[in-house]
């Protein structure tokens, strides 16, 4: 597979050589994870084109998981190389294989392992055949990987486009879905606009420093004092705007709620994790390592952006009536937290941001997977109503969702807590006390809207008053000829058939009818508890389980992840 890519590349190199351009030596091992993604992507397209019958979506999902796992393994091999032999640059210094970059290679591979699982169930339900989602995800992932390892502004721009264009298409790929086209168009227009600004920023920076290579820019700035620095600062500002759009930092966030709401839900989850991972990787690298000499200039700007992002994200999310829109604003709030690490501009800050992005990626993927499942056929039921009584109907799903939401709020013993902890600790040790306090204040505000959703699932069902009345109701319910319902299920006010509902699979309609009939005898109070059952396919269940497990395991034992992020920063 990679062999074929190599042949293609060498043929291309010969063609280029005919034009007289000097072709650099290409170290294929340095970009192996990206090549695996792209090669695998071509393979998937090829198989899909050549297969006589349309393959089921699960087949493509399996292939994508396999490709991503291969890329994960090669990223880990690179990690070993980097930790043993130190960082190195490749492909004419355009790619920088260092701990920081490889951290993101690992993270992006992980996202690509989980995302297809979460999408498979959704695509099957919506009846979307074909390999497009997976192919686009792989391309986008390779773009994010190049962003993380790029050592040249031009490569960052190319990678940004490779990352973004598939995301524009993903936003609109379910053409039957209302709002999807609008979301795609909006994302595309604003994204293209921000890309243009970004290119302008590159041009100005090049004009001021004479290079697009990050290391050379840094070296130039270290040696020279730019006396009239208007062009340089202008370039820096435009770069910041470009990145700001990608990571949805206020005031460049306007596209986020509409696009998150309009996109097919699994695409939203993917977009939220992938675009942030890639965007922040490049943003951190460019600002912290390339422009450390201008830190006193850009730090206040980041400070302001971080505060705006934190506050607006948390406050506006409070008044949302649509869960996807609420989560869009919550993702803006999270972006503010990642910015804390950048504002600190220390090794600790960068490590904190890395940790945060790692934790957040799994949280947001899992959260949107649950939202996609609850959204039902057509992917359009995203009101709070839809979640009413979910805790009684499908306790396991509701508990998993609650864990993900509470982790986003920063509950202890989840990765969400340590993510917030590491960035806030970095901010405090950099003496940004006000920023740290604003961040924690916004976390407290954010807790409200996460809890609102949890509350709807678990508590917001009218039921008979406990005590005397409830006991009687329970007794009469038990007397009813509903053999499979135990006292608890009836008294608890819902048609939760024990055992069956606890597995993440749907209950057969006959059972639902039976349960509803039995529950009806308890009284009208239970009627509200009966809502549509959420179908969760085994693929999605596995994906959600991985996300929840990551959240809890690294929440109780965060040391490996902390070490990983810390070491990654040391080998910058």
């Amino acid at each position, binding site marked *: 597979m990679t062999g074929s890519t190599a042949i293609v590349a060498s043929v291309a190199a010969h063609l280029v050589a005919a034009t007289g351009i000097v072709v650099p030596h290409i170290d294929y091992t340095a970009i192996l994870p990206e090549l695996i993604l792209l090669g695998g992507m071509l393979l998937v397209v090829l198989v899909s084109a050549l297969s006589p019958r349309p393959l089921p979506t699960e087949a493509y999902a399996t292939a994508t998981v396999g490709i991503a796992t291969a890329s994960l393994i090669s990223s880990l091999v690179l990690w070993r190389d980097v930790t043993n032999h130190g960082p190195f640059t490749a492909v004419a210094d355009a790619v920088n294989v260092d701990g920081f970059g490889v951290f993101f290679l690992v993270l992006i591979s992980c996202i690509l392992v989980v995302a297809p699982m979460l999408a498979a169930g959704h695509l099957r339900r919506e009846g979307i055949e074909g390999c497009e989602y997976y192919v686009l995800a792989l391309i986008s992932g390779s773009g994010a990987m190049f962003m993380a390892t790029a050592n040249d502004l031009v490569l960052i721009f190319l990678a940004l486009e490779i990352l973004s264009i598939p995301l524009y298409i993903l936003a609109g790929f379910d053409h039957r879905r209302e709002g999807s086209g609008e979301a795609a168009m909006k994302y595309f227009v604003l994204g293209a606009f921000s890309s243009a600004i970004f290119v302008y920023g590159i041009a100005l920076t090049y004009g001021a420093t004479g290079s697009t290579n990050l290391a050379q820019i840094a070296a130039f700035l270290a040696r020279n004092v730019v006396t009239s620095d208007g062009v340089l600062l202008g370039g820096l500002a435009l770069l910041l705007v470009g990145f700001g759009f990608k990571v949805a930092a206020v005031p460049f966030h306007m596209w986020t709620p509409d696009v998150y709401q309009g996109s097919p839900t699994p695409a939203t989850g993917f977009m939220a994790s992938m675009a942030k991972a890639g965007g922040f990787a490049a943003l951190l690298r460019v600002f912290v390592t390339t422009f450390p000499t201008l830190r006193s200039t850009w730090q206040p700007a980041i400070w302001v952006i971080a505060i705006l992002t934190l506050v607006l994200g948390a406050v506006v999310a409070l008044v949302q009536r649509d869960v996807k829109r609420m989560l869009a604003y919550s993702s803006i709030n999270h972006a503010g937290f990642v910015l804390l690490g950048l504002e600190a501009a220390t090794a600790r800050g960068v490590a904190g941001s890395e940790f945060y992005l790692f934790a957040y990626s799994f949280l947001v993927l899992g959260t949107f997977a649950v939202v996609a499942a609850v959204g039902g056929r057509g992917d359009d039921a995203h009101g709070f109503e839809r979640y009413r009584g979910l805790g009684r109907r499908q306790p396991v799903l509701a508990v998993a969702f609650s864990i993900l939401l509470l982790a986003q709020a920063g509950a202890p013993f989840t990765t969400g807590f340590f993510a917030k*902890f590491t960035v806030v600790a970095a901010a405090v040790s950099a003496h940004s006390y006000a920023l740290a306090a604003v961040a924690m204040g916004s976390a*407290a505000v954010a*807790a409200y809207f996460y809890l609102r959703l949890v509350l709807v699932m678990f*508590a917001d069902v009218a039921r008979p008053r406990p005590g*005397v009345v409830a006991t009687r109701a329970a007794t009469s319910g038990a007397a009813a000829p509903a053999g499979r319902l135990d006292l608890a299920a009836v008294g608890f006010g819902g048609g939760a058939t024990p055992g069956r509902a606890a597995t993440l699979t749907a209950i057969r309609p006959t059972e639902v009818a039976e349960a509803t009939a039995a529950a009806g005898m308890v009284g009208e109070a239970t009627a509200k508890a009966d809502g549509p059952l959420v179908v969760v396919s085994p693929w999605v269940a596995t994906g959600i389980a991985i996300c929840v497990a990551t959240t809890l395991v690294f929440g109780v034992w965060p040391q490996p992840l*902390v070490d990983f992020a810390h070491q990654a920063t040391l080998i910058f």
Partner: protein
Amino acid sequence: MNVSAAGQLLTTGITSSQQAFPFLTALVLLPAGAAILVMLLPRRSRWAIRAAGMAASLGVLGIAAAVLDQFQAGFGGYQMVSEHPWIAPLGISWTLGVDGISLFLVLMTAVLFPVALAGATAKENPKSFTVWVLLLEAGCLGSFLSIDLLVFFLFFEATLVPVYFIIAGWGHERRGYAATKFFIYTFAASAFMLVGILALVSIHQGQTGVTTFDIRRLASTHLSGTAEVVLFLSFTAAFAVKAPVFPFHTWSPDAYGESPAAGSVLLAGVMAKLGTYGIIRFDLGLFPHAVVVLAPLLLTLGVVGIIYGGIVAAVQRDLKRLVAFSSLAHLGFIVVGLFALTGESLSGAVLQMVNHGIYTAALFLLIAMIYRRRGTFAIPKLRGLQSSAPVLAAVFTVVMLASIGVPGLNGFVGEFLILSGTFLTHRWWAVVATGGVVVAAAYFLWAYQRVFHGRADNAAAEEPFAEMTWREGLVMAPLVLLIVALGVYPQPVLERITPSVDAVVLHVEQAAHPTIPLAGQPVEAVLARAERPTVATHPFAAARLDVSSTTPRRGDATSANQRKGAAS
């Protein structure tokens, strides 16, 4: 600062009490592990779920009793310390220890959880309920035992989630509102505490180069006056909301009133103490200077809480809310005791934390019994219960008298120590606070009269008011026994509390008057020296009660010194 001496004392303190069996870690992990086990049990096997929950909480009580047995009276420092690195790069370590201040709070927690499970378990969905209660127990014990600031904070925050679900899942009509209000209030307040913790650690790191969350080391951090006050406020915000201290109490009547019986018992009995415990352990231990500066403010808030809580309790028509406001008043006493900064008042405050836990839990359980029979908390709807349930009325009377602070029952000892200690340093606050005792008597007796006296109104109800059952009696028995025992003979408790409290007082005293020779030393050195009866000669502690000076402390101190000598 005499680092080597401090370090030596520190290690002495640790090694002399190193245990073969990690009692304290077991205390935290047993309920957490049991919660996971119960999670795996099938939903239908209600009996197994209850048995597992009960067994786990009784197991915790057993371990807590063993800790009491191993605890060396007369020694003020941390004992049975177990220390394991947890997240080494961040300087966080799993460090648990117990001293006279936390010992009885741990015991109280260990007593109240099985009582709550036995007396007020949920009929609906007992599995989830048991899981949440056990997780809450792990959280509370972890908070009381942690010496590592961040581990404390993790457990302190972790208690919110179970309580949130207990209120939201099993509460009364406005449970959703109450649960959310509770969570957001406490979460918001402790958010700033996290920033405070990080700032303190960062300052400490700047001074020593060591990243640590160990409060024994952090206590030696040199803070500027402003920094100390700001940090004190960020910590105190979290504790004042949790306790609650007036005017941060507005979540508590809702949360206490709307939560199920077990929720109220554990919220008022155990969780409230997390706040006051935090004040004595962290505020007084880490920011002694700021404590001295701001003590009048906190004393005033405490006194206002006493009077306000009493007056508002008097006009409540709902029994549960009445107890909620009376709780506010009682916590006001504790806060006054803490910030009066005398050995006596602090000992009284610590004792009162335990006492309040016991009698408030008992009150909420009794109210739950009334609710089970009548389906209401409304005082006007209840009448003449005494004639049909004399035993229940008698138990209620005992508990209520303890709560009022009648001599011979446990409420008296704590309140008396607090008031007499406060009188030495802050006379007028003590005088006003004493008025609160009178108010308490008034509202409780008035409520009792309306609920229990008069002609029984059985005709209106569907069935006559039933007498306390054997099962209910069995649940109440340990609490009533403790109420009487602690009221009659508080000596064994006080003699374990006093050395630790004296160390804290000394620590604060040195910060306020740096001329005292021990100034500038870390708290562990102070704690170790507190075994010596130097405190008694100090003017602030001179007028201490007989209860503490007649203890056989001298013998214990000698043996402690011998141990220390052997170890060094």
